[in-house]
């Protein structure tokens, strides 16, 4: 480990001695050593003295103040990492064959609710990290977020009928985000097809049409491995998207005496290729000609840069050509906001661009949704040609893996300078920072509730300018109105650092479930999260969204996933703003006032903080962080705001708009 690596290691702001007698906690803690492991052989990093070789050592069990029985995870969860793995060999079930194929493909995690039993059990017994939550839809969201901050494949699973339909919203959200999500569901029996025998009959595949990349009801048990291959070919090539497999009982329970019983039983290198399409030289020449002509070129780096792992190639290209980069998409950090060529926080400059190089922008905006002006020319790079030219007219389309295209462009482009353009971007960054400071100044004046600018600014300062390495904390940047503030301040400094809320599908409410997936990714140190293994994660959400997946605080607590969930509680849906002066309409957008989401967290085995004034926010965040580090418990920070903050006339600056691409990206 070199010095830079050491400097980047996660640090705790409270040590073990503090944790053993934490006077700031509102609870008493029974000192009963517990070991929470995720995967046999896994090891945490944070609070090293608390970590055992077999997993994360946890020393706290929560005893409520009223002396009711302690809330704690059952010993089966605590000890699961050290439980012996069964030997899985022939004779095997269809579920075992499928799970073994998943293991061979590197399936990185499973998020599920009970149901589809044979398959989820078989996956767990393959030592693939497996988490169960409270709602299948939330688990689909968790898997989506896990993938978005790791780049690895994860699965969600639910039972036939209702368990499957509960996942629909999560699948649709993942589809809009182009997430390679493996969706698994049991689905009754082949022999009982169309009979309505028993319960939970449903023809699943038609319901995911339009929100999946590939789907299949498995029919022939002997082809279960072959269809695993179909699934992973789709998940690992081209433009990603969800793949949905449903398992009739005859397939999951099939018995195979030996390998010869399984059709097309070959390893991954036989049934798919890692080969990627490279750019045509004529297309590269056309692109280089446009780049050389341009005075104010800009790269938009999006989803495809992440999944093709093209961030180093992007950095090299940008630095050689001195072309600035703005990010968009369902995850951020492929091009650090702190890089001098970053244009992600320079919204004023975007309309000046005369050439836009869209790299992996799979979810394509229509004219006017990105801030580029009428003069802008477009180069679009994607691994599949079917979408190139949709919505926005192109000047050059390049069908290529994003990394290969960027490498080819780097080779073909001379070193360039765009100093006047970079000066314009630098000025735009300063102007944006100044505008944010002004908003914070306005928000901090309101003392009777917590203004969103206070949350945004003080959270960002805590993450970027405090004792925590700024690369460390992975953030679920969700919410509705609150996101319009927090995204202005939050910065991504490394790959996989920000999971951008629900993204284009606009689903309200996945955020807490996202934090399950993101915290699981960090807990296991998967992909870009490896260096930050075990670190706390942050989730921002609103009170409307919190209601959808709040029960997953129990999942976070159960697995000791240290997520700090900041709930912007303004007593209303964000939609209230546009109907507030219509008395027959506005009640439809309101909740009861002053709800105690913090107490809900405590009831579910987490920690709660209730913040009512601007000055209380940062101390609450610091306490939550300490608890996350030392006790590995989730916290809900319930920030009491008021819906009137969105009214510009009364509480400037009111609800904020956005400019895309960049830090404010919301739809694309």
């Amino acid at each position, binding site marked *: 480990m070199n010095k830079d690596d050491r400097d980047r290691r996660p640090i705790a702001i409270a040590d073990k001695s503090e944790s053993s007698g934490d006077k700031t906690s509102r609870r008493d803690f029974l000192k009963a050593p517990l070991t929470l492991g995720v995967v046999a052989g896994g090891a945490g990093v944070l609070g090293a003295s608390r970590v055992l070789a077999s997993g994360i050592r946890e020393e706290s069990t929560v005893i409520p103040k009223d002396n009711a029985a302690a809330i704690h995870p059952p010993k089966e969860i605590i000890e699961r990492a050290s439980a012996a793995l069964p030997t899985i060999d022939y004779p095997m079930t269809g579920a075992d064959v499928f799970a073994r194929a998943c293991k061979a493909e590197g399936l990185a995690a499973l998020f599920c609710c009970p149901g589809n039993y044979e398959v989820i059990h078989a996956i767990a017994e393959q030592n693939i990290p497996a988490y169960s939550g409270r709602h299948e839809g939330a688990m689909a969201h968790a898997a989506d977020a896990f993938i978005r901050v790791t780049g690895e494949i994860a699965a969600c699973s639910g039972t036939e009928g209702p368990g499957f339909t509960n996942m629909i919203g999560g699948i649709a959200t993942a589809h809009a985000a182009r997430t390679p999500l493996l969706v698994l569901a049991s689905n009754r029996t082949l022999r009982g097809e169309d009979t309505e025998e028993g319960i939970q009959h449903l023809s699943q595949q038609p319901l995911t049409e339009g929100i999946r990349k590939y789907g299949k009801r498995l029919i022939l048990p002997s082809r279960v491995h072959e269809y695993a291959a179909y699934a992973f070919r789709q998940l690992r090539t081209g433009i990603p998207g969800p793949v949905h497999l449903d398992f009739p009982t005859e397939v999951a329970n099939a018995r195979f005496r030996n390998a010869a019983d399984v059709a097309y039983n070959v390893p991954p290198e036989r049934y798919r290729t890692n080969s990627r399409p490279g750019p045509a030289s004529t297309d590269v020449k056309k692109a280089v000609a446009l780049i050389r002509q341009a005075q104010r070129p800009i790269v938009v780096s999006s989803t495809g840069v992440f999944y093709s792992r093209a961030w180093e190639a992007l950095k090299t290209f940008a630095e050689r050509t001195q072309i600035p980069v703005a990010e968009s998409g369902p995850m951020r950090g492929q091009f650090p906001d702190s890089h001098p060529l970053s244009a992600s926080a320079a919204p004023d400059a975007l309309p000046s661009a005369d050439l836009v190089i869209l790299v992996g922008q799979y979810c394509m905006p229509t004219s*006017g949704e990105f801030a580029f002006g009428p003069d802008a020319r477009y180069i679009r790079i994607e691994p599949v040609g079917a979408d190139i030219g949709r919505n926005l007219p192109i000047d050059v389309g390049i069908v290529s893996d994003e990394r290969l295209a960027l490498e080819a462009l780097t080779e073909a482009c001379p070193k360039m300078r765009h100093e006047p353009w970079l000066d314009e971007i630098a000025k735009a960054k300063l102007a944006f920072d100044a505008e944010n400071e002004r908003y914070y100044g306005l928000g901090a004046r309101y003392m009777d509730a917590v203004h969103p600018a206070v949350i945004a600014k003080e959270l960002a300062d805590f993450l970027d300018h405090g004792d925590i390495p700024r690369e460390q904390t992975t953030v679920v940047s969700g919410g509705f109105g609150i996101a319009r503030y927090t995204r202005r301040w939050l910065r991504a400094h490394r790959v996989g650092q920000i999971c951008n809320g629900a993204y284009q599908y606009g689903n309200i409410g996945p955020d807490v479930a996202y934090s399950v997936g993101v915290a699981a990714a960090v807990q296991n140190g998967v992909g870009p999260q490896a260096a930050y293994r075990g670190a706390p994660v942050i989730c921002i959400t609103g009170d409307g969204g919190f209601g959808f997946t709040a029960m997953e605080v129990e999942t976070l607590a159960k697995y000791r996933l240290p997520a700090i969930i900041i709930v912007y509680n303004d007593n209303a849906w964000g939609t209230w703003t546009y109907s507030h002066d219509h008395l027959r309409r506005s009640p439809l957008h309101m909740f009861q006032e002053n709800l105690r989401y913090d107490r809900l967290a405590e009831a579910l085995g987490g920690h709660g903080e209730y913040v009512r004034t601007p000055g209380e926010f940062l101390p609450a965040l610091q306490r939550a962080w300490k608890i996350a580090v030392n006790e590995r418990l989730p916290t809900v920070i319930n920030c009491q705001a008021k819906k009137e903050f969105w009214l510009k006339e009364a509480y400037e600056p009111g609800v904020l708009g956005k400019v895309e691409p960049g830090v404010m990206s919301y739809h694309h």
Partner: protein
Amino acid sequence: MAEVAGVLRAGAERGLLREFDEHTGARGRFEAKFLWLLPQPMRFVADVVRQRLSCPEMLDGIVATSALRHDLTAFLMGRHSAQLPEHRRVDSARCAIACPVRAGRLTLALDVLDGDWTYATEKLMKLVHETHVYLHRYWPGYAYESLGALLE
């Protein structure tokens, strides 16, 4: 009005301006209609007599005495500022920006001072676009109610 038509036709040929339609009226008046940025068609009208290129009734629901009107006017007049880079600025020696409101409808216009209609057309397109970006950024409520922006 060949210059105005040339710039706009080029936009249509590139696929930027959709459902493009044009006609020339009396006394050299040129009008083009197309879909761009807004759900409803937008018009560009070149009036040789008045030496004015305009996008008539571009915005609806603008109350003349409102904060929105005041802010929007300040933003638009600020497009003449020497602080802006040349490619973002409307040179006040060549065109003068006007934004009259009648019956709640704002017309965005450039008075062509130097006879360069190509310059005026390119600048009016940019001005329309920048106004669109500005409203989405600073007036999201108006963008939702009047520009077809999504509530979410």
